[in-house]
């Protein structure tokens, strides 16, 4: 049975179904439904909810919970995510699985509270200090908010890495029917690294400080190898009418919904348009985009930003064909019509 529900709440339900044990948050629009919902749910379920004093503290509480192997998450929106970057870098270095949710709003600075996609760089290029990557997932519907949150912890634990769900204010706020089709997860695999007190074993420590000669260098090489493995195995994307397309729109999250409608309109008007939607922003489906560009297909990156993902599209295309941009940030939304006009401009 389907239930009409906000994207943000669907995300909470997905995380809960996956066995979330601890939620730490701090209010910021447009994700306030998440801490509010969790404050009731987690307490009712006998699990952990803390409204932290800041995003810094919330993310470091997640770090603490994650050290002990429990499933822990925090959520925020753009300015708050900037504060969480400290803990995210540490968790990447300490190899701690966790879930960080960014329901993006307009920036830079305090910006505004309308949906945006202008934290792409911050999410996929690091954000915090040091050479690290985190898995970045981009749902585009309430159903996917639920499913992505459900899967995020498995991914995080499989690779011992923080995972970010990069949503946007519109996907978070939008109400849509959601099928709650996920089973409650049984408690996950026994871990051999987490801190539980050293009963019947030698003491353990989890750290990113590696001072001895060459140790950090080796750790970083290991991390890069892990990132390569993730890139080989975990890329997810969706295509729509790309087989014969002369122009392929690349878009994620809410932009991909608008772009899909635009493709439908364009097709009706006899324009051979298609859509390529990355569901993982890191790892980015570069090979697949490169493959499409071999046939000379042009690309149009549609984003609620002033052009961020387009840089990864261009890297993938590597000069083989034309790549253009259409976007708005800070409250404006790209319309289907604008996309169709841009398609015409590019292929007629």
């Amino acid at each position, binding site marked *: 049975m389907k239930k009409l529900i906000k994207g943000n709440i669907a995300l909470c339900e997905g995380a809960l179904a996956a066995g979330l*044990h*601890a939620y*730490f948050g701090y209010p910021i629009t447009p994700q306030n439904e998440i801490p509010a919902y969790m404050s009731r749910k987690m307490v009712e379920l006998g699990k*952990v909810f*803390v409204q*932290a*004093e*800041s995003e*810094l*503290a*919330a993310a*470091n*509480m*997640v*770090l*603490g*919970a*994650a*050290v*002990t192997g*429990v499933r*822990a998450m925090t959520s925020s929106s753009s300015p708050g995510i900037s504060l969480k970057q*400290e*803990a995210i870098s*540490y968790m990447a270095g*300490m190899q701690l699985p966790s879930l960080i949710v960014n329901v993006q709003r307009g920036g830079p600075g305090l910006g505004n509270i309308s949906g945006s996609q202008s934290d792409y760089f911050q999410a996929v290029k690091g954000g915090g200090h040091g050479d690290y990557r985190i898995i970045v997932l981009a749902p585009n519907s309430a159903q996917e908010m639920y499913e992505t949150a459900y899967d995020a912890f498995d991914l995080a634990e499989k690779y011992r890495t923080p995972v970010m769900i990069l949503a946007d204010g519109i996907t978070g706020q939008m109400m849509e029917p959601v099928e709650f089709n996920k089973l409650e997860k049984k408690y996950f695999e026994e871990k051999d690294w987490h*801190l*539980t*007190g*050293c*009963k*019947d074993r030698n*003491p*353990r*420590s*989890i*750290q*990113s*400080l590696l001072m001895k000669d060459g140790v950090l260098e080796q750790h970083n090489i290991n991390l890069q190898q892990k990132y390569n493995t993730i890139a080989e195995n975990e890329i997810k994307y969706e295509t729509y009418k790309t087989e014969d397309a002369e122009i392929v729109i690349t878009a994620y999250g809410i932009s991909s919904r608008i772009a899909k409608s635009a493709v439908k309109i364009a097709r009706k008007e006899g324009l051979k348009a298609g859509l390529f939607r990355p569901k993982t922003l890191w790892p980015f489906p570069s090979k697949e985009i490169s493959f499409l560009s071999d046939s000379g297909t042009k690309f149009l990156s549609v984003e609620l930003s002033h052009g961020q993902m387009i840089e990864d599209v261009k890297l993938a295309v590597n000069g083989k064909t034309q790549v253009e941009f259409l976007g708005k940030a800070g409250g404006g939304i790209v319309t289907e019509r604008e996309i169709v006009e841009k398609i015409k401009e590019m292929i007629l």
Partner: protein
Amino acid sequence: MNKILSKPEALKDEVLSYCPGCGHGIIHRLIAECIDELGVREKTIAVAPVGCAVFAYDYFNFDVTEAPHGRPPAVATGIKRSNPDKFVFTYQGDGDIAAIGMSETIHAANRGENIAVIFVNNANYGMTGGQMAPTTLIGQVTETTPFGRDPKREGYPIHLCELLATLEGAVYLERVAIYNPQNIIKAKKAIKKAFQNQIDGKGFSLVEVISNCPVDWGMTVLDSIKWVKDVFIKTFPLGVVKDKTS
């Protein structure tokens, strides 16, 4: 011959990296003795700071995690809330706890987190080479107060125990020192009490240990001990600042 003193089980057989005469070594030992005596070694998860004690995981013989600079109280909150049956304490310097981590400290105390905090006050930032800390004394010369700390420029030394005492959630706050055997015994008693409070579920306890940093103070070990006794504890008087537990 009777052995009257041996290394606590809660300390690894490692050579500590602290400078000769530094207080951190004594405080590590006191903590380890308390952990042994309370029988909690196998359920301890400690949080090491950023500061001279950043290598604590190499010295303690129980589980220890790292935390970003100043965040141990938040990290400990995450650990303890998810694992109420474990024994959790943080070990922090004055820069860690009262500068960058002041917010985390106040709020963990105010929530009454059932953790213990060992706060090593050596009136400067040891690890980065002796800069001014929130606890640096008026007139004290440090790397970043070359003319001596002037309240007009740098404000006053922060008295963390007194500051936290106003918070309902903080149940036990005591300031101790380790400059002579009598005080070392008192310091151990305070640490043990803070630890026992957690075991009894009483809430947030903090023990401030006045310690010496001979190297960054530019003093001999003996002079640094004398300075603690003659100067340091005049600004930071020893004793129980708050006790809601007995």
